[in-house]
C-alpha cells in the first residue's frame, strides 16, 4: 500500500491534504467551542435548580439531557462537517 501512497503524494496533493487537515481542525474548533460553553451553562443551571428544589430533580434531569442534546448537536454538525471537507 505504501508505494500507492507515494504515487499519490505529488507536491500539489500534499499541500492540498495539509490545507484540508487545517480546515478540518478550524471547523471542529469553531463548532466545538460554542457548544462546550453552552453545555456547561445548561448543566450548571440544571445542578443549581436541582440543589434548590431536589424534589423536582427528575424533571430537571430529563430537561437537562434534552438541552444537552440540542446543544451538543451543533458540535456534532461540526464533527460531521470536518469529514465532509475532503481534500
Amino acid at each position, binding site marked *: *500500500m505504501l508505494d*500507492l*501512497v507515494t*504515487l*499519490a503524494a*505529488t507536491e500539489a*496533493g500534499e499541500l492540498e491534504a495539509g490545507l484540508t487537515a487545517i480546515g478540518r481542525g478550524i471547523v471542529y474548533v469553531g463548532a466545538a467551542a460554542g457548544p462546550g460553553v453552552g453545555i456547561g451553562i445548561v448543566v450548571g443551571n440544571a445542578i443549581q435548580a436541582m440543589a434548590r428544589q431536589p424534589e423536582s430533580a427528575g424533571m430537571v434531569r430529563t430537561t437537562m439531557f434534552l438541552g444537552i442534546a440540542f446543544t451538543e448537536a451543533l458540535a456534532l454538525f461540526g464533527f*460531521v462537517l470536518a*469529514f*465532509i471537507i*475532503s481534500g
Partner: protein
Amino acid sequence: MRRFRLLFAGLAVVLLGLVAGVGTAHAVSEEELREECIHILEEGGTVDDCHEAPSPILPEANEVLWGGIAFLVLLLLLWKFGYPAMAKGLDDRAERIRSDLEAADTAKNEAEATRAEYEDQLRGAREEATRMRDDARAEMDDYKAQRRAEIDAELAEYRERAKAEADAAKGQALADVKAEVAALAIGAAEQVVQKSLDRDTNVALVESYIDSVDARG
C-alpha cells in the same frame, strides 16, 4: 429456563465466531487495490481518486435496506409477541392490586358496619335494661303506694270500728249503770218506804243496801 439459556449461549458463540472471523474493516488486499487503481486510471480518473476511501458519512444502500427491514421486523415481533404479554401482565397486576385494595376497603367497611351494628345493639340492650329497671322501680313504687294506701284504709277502718265498738260499749255501760242506779234507787226507795223509820235507820238501811249491792257487784 435452563434449555433457553443454553440455546442463547450457543447462538451467541456461533454469531461471535462468524462475525469475528469476517476480518478487519476494509481488509482488501494490495493487489486488488492496485488493480482497482489501474481500472480508475484507465477510465480517465486521477491518481488521487485511487486513494479516496468512501466517505464515512454517506449511507450505504445495503445497510439502509437491511436496517429498515431489521427494525420493522423487530417492531412487528415486539408489537405482536413481546409487548402484549408484558403489557397484559402489568395491567393484570395493576388490576389485581386495585381489586385487592378495593376488597380490603370493602372488608374494612363491612367490619366497621358490623361493629357499629354491635354497638347499636349493645346500646339498645343497655337502654332496654335501664328502661326495664325503671319500669320495675316505678311499678314497685306504685305497688308500695297502693299497699300503703290499702293498709292505711284498713287501719282507719279498724280504728273506726274499734272506736264505734268502744262507743257502743260505753253507751251500753252507761245505760246499764243508769238501769242499775234506777233499780238501786227503786230498791232503796222500797226499803225506805216499807220501813219508814227514823233518819238514822234510813241512812243505815241505804248504806247496808249499797254495801249489799257492792258485795254483790
